Each structure stands twice: as C-alpha cells, then as structure tokens.
C-alpha cells in the first residue's frame, strides 16, 4: 500500500509542523483549523481512489462528478456503486465517527479529570455491544444501530443513576459506576455469545465488538454526520468551562461555573454523541483515548484549541485507519478497530509509562 503511505506521509508531517507552529509563533487557531479541514478533505479525496477494486482516479472522479450533478458520463452501475455506495459513504462515516469519538474523549477526559478516560467510560460500548448481540444472536427484531444506541443509552442511565445514588456526581464515583455497569453488560454479552453462537455466527459479532465500518452506507453517514452537527458542534462551546474544570470542582465553582449542571449537560451530550457513533461503527477503540492526548501534546491543555483539533485529527486518523483496514490485505478485510488498536496501543502504553514515571 505505497499509495496509502505516500498520501498519509505529507499530511501527517504537515499537521505536525502546523501544530508546532501554533505553539511557537501563535498562529491563529482558525488558521490551523482551516488547514485541518483542507487536510481532511484531501485525505478523503485521495482515500476514495484507493481500494481492492482496480478503478482509476479518472473513473472515481467521473463517478463523483456525475452524482454531484456536474455532468460527465457515469460509470457502469457496478463500478459506480463501488465508488458511490461503498467507498464514499464509508469514508464520510469514518471521518464523522473519528471526529465524534476524539471529541467525546477530550471532553470526557476533562470532566472526569482522568487522563485514561475515553468515550466509552460510562459503559456505553458495553451497553451498545449488548444491544448488538441481542440483534445478531438473539434475533431481537430491531435494526442493529437502533438496538446498539438503545443499549448504550440504557448503560448510560444505569451508570448515572448509580453514580448519583450516593449523592452528587463526582468524577471518581462516575468512573466507578461505569466500571460496574460495563462489567455487568460485558459479562451478559459474553454469556449470550457462549450460549447462542453456533457455526460461524460469532464472526459477525466479532467484527462488531472490534469496531468495523464495512457496513457503512449512506444511512450511516446521515446518522454520524447529523449527530456530529447537532451534538458535537455545541460541545465545542463548552471549551471555556472545561478549562475551568481543570482546576477542580471548587475552583470551577469559584469561577462562576454551575458545576453539577455543566457536568450533567456535558456528560449527557458526550454520551449521546458516542452512542450515535457506536451505533454505526461498533466500538472502535483508542481513537477517543489516544488522539486527544496526542493533540494535547502539540497544543497544550487549552480546550479552545484541543476540542476542534482533536475532532479534526480523529477524523483524519480514522479515514486512513479504515483505508488501511480495507485495502492493506486486499482482498481480505480487517475490522478497523484492529488497526486503530495496533496503532493506538503502543501510544497508550507510552502515555501509561510517562504517567507512572512522573
């Protein structure tokens, strides 16, 4: 996959340089953000030409332009389908999910003041997995994304109820409640898999548990993009409040922040966003955990830069991770969660090592 490497190379180093410049010469956030958007657009434009099917760059753009109504002759129905029904919706879903997860992760790390927090902290992925297992193995008559979303929301409610049962919601209590709910949901998921999986039916659920964008079509794009626009964008406005949170609940209250109210709102928003993303992609790991840390290393802890840039970095990262997942072992496919974990785990390990040393 030299095409992938060549395309990823300049993008990644370009972003690094630009972000370093942000710290050094105080280049405006808007400038870097714009650069990120351009990089994301370029990534999608390049990645849409990559795949196991032998379709030339010219053909790809003929397909795109005919759908965008800029004329030109369309391809044969099948070749057009590869570009317009498979590659493009998958790339757009990857971008939206990557952005949503990285953003959720950054917010979650701030409200819990926990460097190891990720979007799934409140039991969301375990709850969503349980919903997915119910459909895939128990034959519950719901659409998979609907069941996964409901599962995630049930887990969230259980976690918050548990965290609140002992009084005000504190970060530590929230994390512990998440542990309890996650482990219960995960255990039930395991039980269902052991109990019911026959023949090779476990394969579908395996792909789902690891996170996969292979099933992403236009409806998935709609869910992910709408969730990002409706829930994700307003979360960006919480940046200033999150900066106040960094100094602890008491200091935040002294700065005039309504601590419990804001925490509820942000937790709810993050959970809603994550639930929507998980419902279309399964639980893709590490994007929400590692990318905010990577961006923070470059931008510093201020959330006004951290939140939007994490979202952009997450989008670009997942676009390329999924492109690798579908084309690296052509014609085989990997669940994208395997790719993100292979890239994310070493970074995560490094962060852990740094934490224990300091």
């Amino acid at each position, binding site marked *: 996959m030299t095409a992938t490497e060549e395309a990823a190379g300049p993008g990644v180093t370009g972003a690094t340089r630009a972000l370093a410049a942000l710290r050094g010469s105080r280049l405006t956030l808007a400038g870097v953000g714009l650069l990120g958007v351009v990089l994301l657009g370029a990534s999608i434009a390049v990645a849409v030409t990559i*795949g*196991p*099917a*032998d*379709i030339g760059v010219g053909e790809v753009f003929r397909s795109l332009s005919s759908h965008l109504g800029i004329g030109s002759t369309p391809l044969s*129905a*099948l*070749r057009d*389908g*590869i570009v317009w*029904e*498979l590659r493009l919706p998958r790339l757009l879903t990857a971008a939206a999910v990557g952005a949503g997860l990285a953003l959720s992760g950054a917010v979650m790390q701030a409200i819990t003041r*926990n460097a*190891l927090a990720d979007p*799934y*902290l409140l039991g969301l*992925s*375990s709850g969503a*997995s349980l919903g997915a*297992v119910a459909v895939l*193995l128990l034959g519950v008559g719901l659409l998979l994304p609907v069941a996964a979303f409901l599962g995630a929301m049930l887990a969230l409610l259980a976690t918050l109820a548990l965290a609140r049962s002992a009084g005000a919601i504190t970060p530590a209590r929230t*994390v512990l409640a*998440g*542990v309890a709910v*996650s*482990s219960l949901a*995960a*255990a039930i*998921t*395991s039980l269902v*898999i*052991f*109990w019911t*999986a*026959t*023949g*090779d*039916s*476990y*394969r*579908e*659920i*395996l*792909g*789902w*548990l*690891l996170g*996969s964008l*292979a*099933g992403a*079509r*236009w409806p998935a794009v709609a869910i992910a993009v709408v969730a990002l626009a409706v829930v994700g964008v307003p979360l960006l406005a919480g940046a200033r409040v999150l900066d106040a949170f960094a100094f602890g609940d008491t200091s935040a209250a002294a700065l005039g922040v309504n601590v419990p109210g804001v925490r509820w709102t942000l937790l709810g928003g993050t959970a809603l966003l994550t639930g929507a993303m998980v419902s279309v992609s399964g*639980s893709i790991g590490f994007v929400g955990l590692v990318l905010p840390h990577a961006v923070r290393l470059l931008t510093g802890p201020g959330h006004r830069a951290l939140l939007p840039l994490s979202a952009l970095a997450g989008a670009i990262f997942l676009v390329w991770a999924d492109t690798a997942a*579908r084309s690296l072992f*052509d*014609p*085989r*496919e*990997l*669940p994208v969660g395997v790719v993100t974990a292979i890239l994310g785990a070493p970074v995560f390990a490094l962060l852990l090592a740094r934490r224990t040393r300091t």
Partner: protein
Amino acid sequence: MHLRLAFPLLPLTAVAVLAGCASPGAGAAPTPPATTAAAAVAVDNCGTPVTFPAAPSRVLTIKSTSTEMLLALGLGDRIVGTAFQDGPLPENLAADGASLVSVADQVPTEEAVLGLEPDLVYAGWESNFSADGAGERDELQSLGIATYVSPAACKEPEYKPKKLTWDSIFGEIREVGDIFRVPEQAEKVVAAQQAELATVAPDAEGRTALWWSSGDDTPYVGAGTGAPQLILDTLGLTNIAGDVQDTWTPLGWESIVAADPDVIVLVDASWNTADSKIATLQTDPATKNLSAVKNSRYLLVPFPASEAGVRSADATVDLAAQLADLS
C-alpha cells in the same frame, strides 16, 4: 482504572475462544492407519497418536460432520450422544439418525463427556477438544477415552493440507472404517461417492462464483484451500476468492462487486439464512446490480454440508443440479 479496561475485553475473549473453532475443515490427507495384526488400529490424528484396541462401541459425536460420517457407515448404533450439531441431518440419513440423543447444543463440558462414559469422542473441529470444551485430548485419552478429529480440520501445519482433495475426504471415510472394523462398508461408501461425482459435468460456460458463508458487513467466504474450493472446482466454477490461501476468509464487498461473480453460492444456516442473504444482496445499493443478483443466479447449500465430510459429495451433486437448472 486498569480494571475498567479489562472488563470490556470480556466479550472479545468469549469470541476469541469461539474463533478458535474458526475455519471449519481444511483437509489433510489422513495418514493411513497402521493396522497391527488383527488387533489394534493405531492412527496419527492431527499429530495425536490414538490406538484403538477394539472397535469403539460408545461414541460421542461433536458437530454434524462426525455424526453424519458414522451414520453413513451404518454405525448409528454406536453413538451414545451427539453435541453441537450444525443443522438437521440430510434426508438419506434422517431415518437412521432419528433416535440419536443430543446431549448439548454447544460443545459439552468435560464432565458431561465423562458422564456419558464414551470410549471415543469424535469431533468435527480440533478446537472442540480444550479445557473449557470437551476436555484436552491427552487428558481424555489418559482416562481411557479415545479422541478423533476429522482430519480435514487438522490445524497443525504438517497435518493441515495445502489443498483439500476428494482423496482427503475418502481417506477419512476409510480411516474411520478401519477404526470401526468396517472397511468394506467404507469402500462401499467411497465407491458410491466416486460414481456420484463422476456424473458431475464441469460448468460448460466456466463461470465464476462466490461462496458466501456468513457475515453481512464483511462477508465470510469460501477461499482457496477448503471444502468450498474443492466443490467449486468439481463444479467447474472459478472461485473469486480462490487466490486466498486459506479455507475460509473475510472478503470485502468492494472485492466482490469488482469481481461481479456469475453465480453466488449461499450457505443456508439457521443464524444467517439464504433468504436473509438474498434480501441483503437485493437491497444493498452496492450489490443489487451484480449480475448474479439481477438474474437470481443463486445456489443453496445447507451449512452442515459446507464443511468437509461424508456429505460433501452429495452437496456437490446437489449444487450441480441447481447449476444446471440456472441456465
């Protein structure tokens, strides 16, 4: 915090254990049994030496392939229990197998196995023998229970064949015939299958095919070395995933659409029916224009017949008839 990360992995662990039973049946040509005098039959089964001083009389079969093998050899009365069956028995064996008792829907635990007091556990997959499955082979054998795995499903590199052949399957039939001291019956079954297969004429048009076993987002399909490849070869169809050196493989939709197979073989399993596969193919905007979909060129095979075994020949003949009806 570390704990929290451990828990979400639980379902994956569960899947990983099941995934150990993945890739059903690659076929190794079974090593011919070294019959010592008239007494013991000794075989090297997937690297485990097994000795049969006498024909087994109390057999537990795990997975459909092993049950069907014994029924085909007229040994149904030796079966004390079946477990983890993949689907109903084929018509020609249904009457003989009507009285069989299923002891577990999944792989039985070792204690359940011991409770049956079998003298042989005959499994379709190597992974059925594990500490959290029917028990490790060594341990069962030390308790006087012989173990046998369909040689087509051996996983060790020296025992897993480069490519499954009819001779691998006939080899298993003969080996099981020797173990049960019914070699004539085994020869009869082999001869019948050879005659049956001789009637299959390769597809005149040399069409291409996809063997879709399961999975919707990323189809899990028959690849280049297992029973699907053997059957497709016999039918004169070119497997679009035939270049992948494995028994089964995940194959992305993009590769499938790009190859545009002429014919699609749909595995009909209770957990992923042929009907649900057809519905997916017809509604997904990326696949509804495939020529096999537009012309409804589907061939159906029940899941238990899609794994290498005594049923493979019948499945091939059945698919050949369906193929002939298409054109």
